């Protein structure tokens, strides 16, 4: 929404503020100013000058030397090439050191304007410049009296004298303010609405336009009739007729005001409908009466598949939910969106029918979306207009017709309004309002604000009557906001909530996430952030088979494109993509981790919310191998109370991982996650030509298993006994299997077992490897006897031999 300050001042004449004061105060009372533009930007030191004498330039045929009276004691001398100067003319004159907005060619204005300095033209001193309208940043469209070529000359009847501020005299000292109006304030999408806000904000009287009686002695009903068939979509329809039309240009003030709204002047009739739409916020439409069959207007829904050509020449396909304006035979306009080509106003129009109606906002919004027609009128209706606006608007339009001599208004108005909207009544509850705001505003003060806002108060019933244009005021809290706005949000005191104390805390799972972050960052992994949605192509990139559970993903019905169309069921793609980004950018290494959900549907299509599982995804390339990453996971387990409790079970079940380098991380029957090297083919798919290691931890499981229940066990008092085992075995045996045996047989007395050597090659038979462990045995309550330890070792050897493991000779 834009408003020129001058238009606001037309209804709030006592408003005497600078642009900055206006903008600041309006923002603080709720009309957030996004931007404002001074129309006199770069216009400096420009006064009205009177040409008192013109002489030929001694050395140039096309230049003349003028003596210009600028209200001082002596006239100044200005050399000009303008062809239209005459003695006695009053012209805008920029003085030495002043600025104009642009050149006389009307090209795009330079951002900082053009500085004017005194100098010599062909040897003759010149102390300023007389200005063309283009040099003042405007155009002949708004100042039609300006010459096509030459300086602007004030009309003879202009009330100006030499030395006056020419910018002010031309009305160029205006400011156009752009607001961000919130969707609840439908009334503020109009100049009148904004002027009312300004009047309350600055506590000045508000004078809305006075609508005069219009029309001749004829009856409108003799010209046209109106019938609403679908009243659910059209609560009100007003129509009036204007005959003997005189189409012509609009006056300058109207063109200027329309221009400030970004609307180009067409002719007086079209301009009036646009003007009223901006002034009142009520869209209007004009039909040529001669094109209306049977001189009858019918408002009804379209039939599915109807074709209709709108006044922009485009053919539209309609459906049953589109509301149409029809005549006795055919459709002539899409209600609230755009008129039809078949009834549009042309230059040879004789008689027109004005329409000011109220249409259902939601219907207009949906229709305009379906039809792909975002018109100014639709934008207004979409917000849900007050039906009570329509009559004022149509009468205002007729008043402008008469004032501008654009035609003869036929008497009377057709007003179909079966269920008039009545003003709401709300109780006046000053204590409750103060209690909500934490303020102590006097009831009288509140009533003062309400009165200025157009709410009347009846003391007897203690009720406030809310005008129908304020559809947003429905309860005490809404009224309290009005009080707060004009009392000033920044005048509300500052306090902290009292009452029952509450415990500030993080949920337990967040504490585990924090530990994970510390562990990961301590190992060189940085936190990343990835999207929750991705492309279904990811499944192929990850080599997932057609029947993979991962492929059962939730689809977004209106995605931004295929790349963001499904909710991820596997978290790997985000980190892999990020690693690829780093790889392509030639970063030597990358170590990333990411916390984010995967979304697992219980059934597709969704009938209930999916399961959201938090996954910690870790990925790395460049420096380090499988065991580097495994070490990190082990540290994470250590720090969450799972020291030595997780098993790394070799597997081949993850198709995106190297079949010989992947493991599930388990505890008992629970799967905590998995770890492995990315399958080289997957690496190719992501364009990473180096070894990539990844792990995914299911945080719900880790959180569930985590424990911080630590009990001090004392420091060993009795000596331990160590034994080394050097074994030879098949290469295919995992050391995990050996450790399992050591732990099982060692029982409580086995304090630790550490792998200290693993060897393949010479001295060892083909297909075999040698593995060596140091075991430490210790009892808490005594010194272990050698025989005791021997017994255990014997048991271990027996178990190992079952796997074909022998002691190395």
């Amino acid at each position, binding site marked *: 929404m834009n408003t020129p300050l001058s238009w606001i001042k037309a209804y709030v004449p006592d408003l005497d503020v600078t642009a900055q004061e206006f903008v600041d105060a309006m*923002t*603080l*009372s709720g009309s*957030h100013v996004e931007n404002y533009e001074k129309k006199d930007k770069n216009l400096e030191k420009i006064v009205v000058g009177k040409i008192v004498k013109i002489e030929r330039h001694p050395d140039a045929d096309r230049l003349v030397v003028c003596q210009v009276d600028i209200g001082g004691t002596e006239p100044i001398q200005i050399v000009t090439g303008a062809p239209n100067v005459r003695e006695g003319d009053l012209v805008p004159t920029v003085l030495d050191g002043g600025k104009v907005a642009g050149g006389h060619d009307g090209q795009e204005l330079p951002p900082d304007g053009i500085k004017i300095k005194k100098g010599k033209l062909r040897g003759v001193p010149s102390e300023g410049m007389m200005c063309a309208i283009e040099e003042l940043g405007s155009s002949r469209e708004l100042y039609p009296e300006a010459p096509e070529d030459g300086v602007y000359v004030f009309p003879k009847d202009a009330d100006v004298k030499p030395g006056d501020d020419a910018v002010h005299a031309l009305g160029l000292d205006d400011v156009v303010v752009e607001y961000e109006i919130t969707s609840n*304030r439908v009334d503020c999408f109009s100049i009148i609405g904004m002027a009312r806000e300004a009047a309350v904000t600055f506590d000045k009287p508000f004078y809305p336009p006075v609508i005069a009686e219009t029309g001749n002695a004829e009856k409108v009903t003799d010209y046209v009739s109106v019938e609403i068939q679908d009243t659910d979509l059209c609560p009100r329809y007003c129509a009036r007729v204007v005959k003997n039309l005189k189409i012509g240009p609009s006056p300058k003030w109207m063109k200027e005001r329309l221009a400030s709204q970004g609307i180009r002047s067409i002719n007086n009739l079209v301009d009036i409908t646009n003007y009223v739409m901006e002034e009142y916020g009520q869209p209007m439409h004009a039909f040529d009466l001669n094109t209306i069959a049977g001189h009858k207007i019918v408002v009804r829904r379209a039939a599915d598949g109807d074709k209709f050509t709108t006044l922009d020449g485009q053919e539209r396909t309609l459906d049953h939910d589109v509301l149409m304006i029809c005549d006795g035979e055919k459709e002539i306009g899409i209600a609230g969106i755009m008129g039809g080509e078949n009834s549009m106003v042309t230059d040879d129009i004789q008689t027109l029918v004005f329409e000011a109606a109220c249409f259902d906002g*939601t219907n207009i*919004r949906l229709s305009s979306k379906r039809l792909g027609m975002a018109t100014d009128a639709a934008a207004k209706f979409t917000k849900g207009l007050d039906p009570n606006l329509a009559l004022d608007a149509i009468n205002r339009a007729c008043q402008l017709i008469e004032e501008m001599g654009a035609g003869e208004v036929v008497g009377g108005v057709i007003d179909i309004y079966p269920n008039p909207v009545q003003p709401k009544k709300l109780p006046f509850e000053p204590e409750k309002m103060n*209690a*909500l*705001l*934490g303020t102590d505003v006097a009831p009288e003060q509140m009533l003062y604000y309400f009165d200025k806002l157009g709410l009347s108060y009846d003391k007897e019933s203690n009720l406030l009557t809310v005008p129908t244009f304020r559809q947003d005021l429905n309860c*005490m*809290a*809404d009224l*309290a*906001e009005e009080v707060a*706005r004009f009392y000033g*949000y*920044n005048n*509300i005191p*500052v*306090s*902290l*909530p009292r*009452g029952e*104390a*509450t415990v*500030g805390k*993080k949920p337990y799972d967040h504490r585990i996430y924090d530990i994970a*972050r510390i562990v*990961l*960052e*301590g190992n060189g992994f*940085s*936190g*990343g*952030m*990835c999207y*929750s*949605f991705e492309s279904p192509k990811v499944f192929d990139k990850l080599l997932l088979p057609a029947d993979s559970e991962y492929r059962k993903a939730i689809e*977004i019905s*209106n*995605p*931004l494109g295929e790349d963001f169309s499904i*909710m991820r069921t596997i978290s790997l793609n985000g*980190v892999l993509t*990020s690693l690829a*980004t780093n790889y392509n*950018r030639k*970063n030597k*290494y*990358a*170590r*990333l981790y*990411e916390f984010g*959900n995967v*979304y697992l549907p219980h059934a597709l*299509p969704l009938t209930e*919310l999916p399961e*959201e599982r938090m996954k910690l995804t870790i990925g790395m390339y460049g420096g380090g191998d499988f065991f580097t990453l495994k070490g990190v996971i082990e540290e994470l387990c250590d720090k969450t109370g799972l020291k030595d409790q997780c098993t790394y079970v070799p597997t081949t079940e993850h198709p995106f991982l190297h079949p010989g380098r992947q493991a599930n991380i388990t505890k008992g029957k629970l799967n905590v996650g998995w770890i492995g090297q990315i399958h080289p083919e997957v690496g190719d798919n992501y364009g990473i030509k180096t070894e990539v290691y990844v792990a995914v931890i299911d945080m719900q499981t880790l959180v569930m298993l985590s424990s911080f229940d630590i009990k001090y066990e004392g420091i060993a008092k009795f000596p331990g006994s160590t034994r080394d085992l050097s074994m030879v075995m098949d290469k295919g045996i995992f050391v995990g299997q050996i450790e399992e045996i050591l732990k099982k047989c060692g029982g409580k007395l086995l304090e630790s077992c550490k792998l200290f050597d693993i060897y393949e090659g010479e001295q060892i038979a083909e297909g075999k490897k040698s593995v060596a462990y140091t075991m430490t045995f210790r009892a808490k309550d005594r010194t272990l006897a050698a025989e005791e330890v021997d017994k255990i070792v014997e048991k271990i050897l027996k178990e190992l031999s079952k796997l074909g493991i022998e002691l190395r000779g």
Partner: protein
Amino acid sequence: MKEKLEAIKAEALEKIEKAKVLESLNDVKVAVLGKKGELTQVLKGMKDVAPEDRPKVGQMVNDARTAIESALEAKTKAINQALRTEKMKRETIDVTLPGTKKLTGHRHPNQIALEDLERVFIGMGYEIVDGPEVEYDKYNFELLNIPANHPAKDEQDTFYITKDILLRTQTSPVQARVMEKGHLPIRIISPGRVFRADEVDATHSPSFHQVEGLVIDKGITMADLKGTLQQFAEEFFGKDTKVKFRPHHFPFTEPSAEVDVTCFKCGGKGCRVCKGSGWIEILGCGMVHPKVLHDCGINPEEYSGFAFGIGLERVTLLKYEIDDMRLLYENDMRFLDQF
């Protein structure tokens, strides 16, 4: 006898004095104090001394011995000290060489900002609560006073899965879920991922984070809301931060406000970060709409409350002067390493 002793002593002391290395001292020790040393020889020769002179001579020998021993000790210490000084001199290192660092990772800037924010509110007694990212329309819209056909529900803003299930567009549904549980009073913040159908560019992302705040209790006022956010701004952005409340509209709060803080870059003078205004918009807030309270099962005549929502990325980008939102999702190590 006396002369002899004096001579031994003088000679020994001179040798000690002249000694440069520990070996020379040892030589003196052996030559004078050793089993066959000169002084020992003198003692052995005591039998030839007249008995009445023996105590006196004995005394003289001891004196000489003590003198030599203490000279030896002092010199040993001096030589050792010199040796150590010499050694340390050789051991001098270039302390300006770089330290040996372990490769450590970096926290994502969004996470750092979130943790700063959580710390402030936990300190004020707020509990952190999570909610689902795939959400029912009922919680995301309906219970928040955004009825069917509200423009905010337009497909262009919201990602839908089915008619009733969508990707939450805000963290506010957590408000409705917490209120519905009915444990009063409520003081929560709820950070999380939200989704809107905005194409990716320097200032937009279809996925970003909000932090929702909600307080419900008896007698909560708008003054409390102002005080709370003022406190937050001072803790989060710095002690001298000022806060400005501007009226705004949100369907689920009434009165509603947008909050600006004095620019944390220039302190309010006007700069590139605040686009010259001196203020930066950081959040939306308001008093919980009585209809929302009612629909979530809380009696608005008895309870009132406030809510606020902060766009986390916005705060992160401003705080770290990051000029492109896409950087937050690329995870380039050269970006992450800076935090």
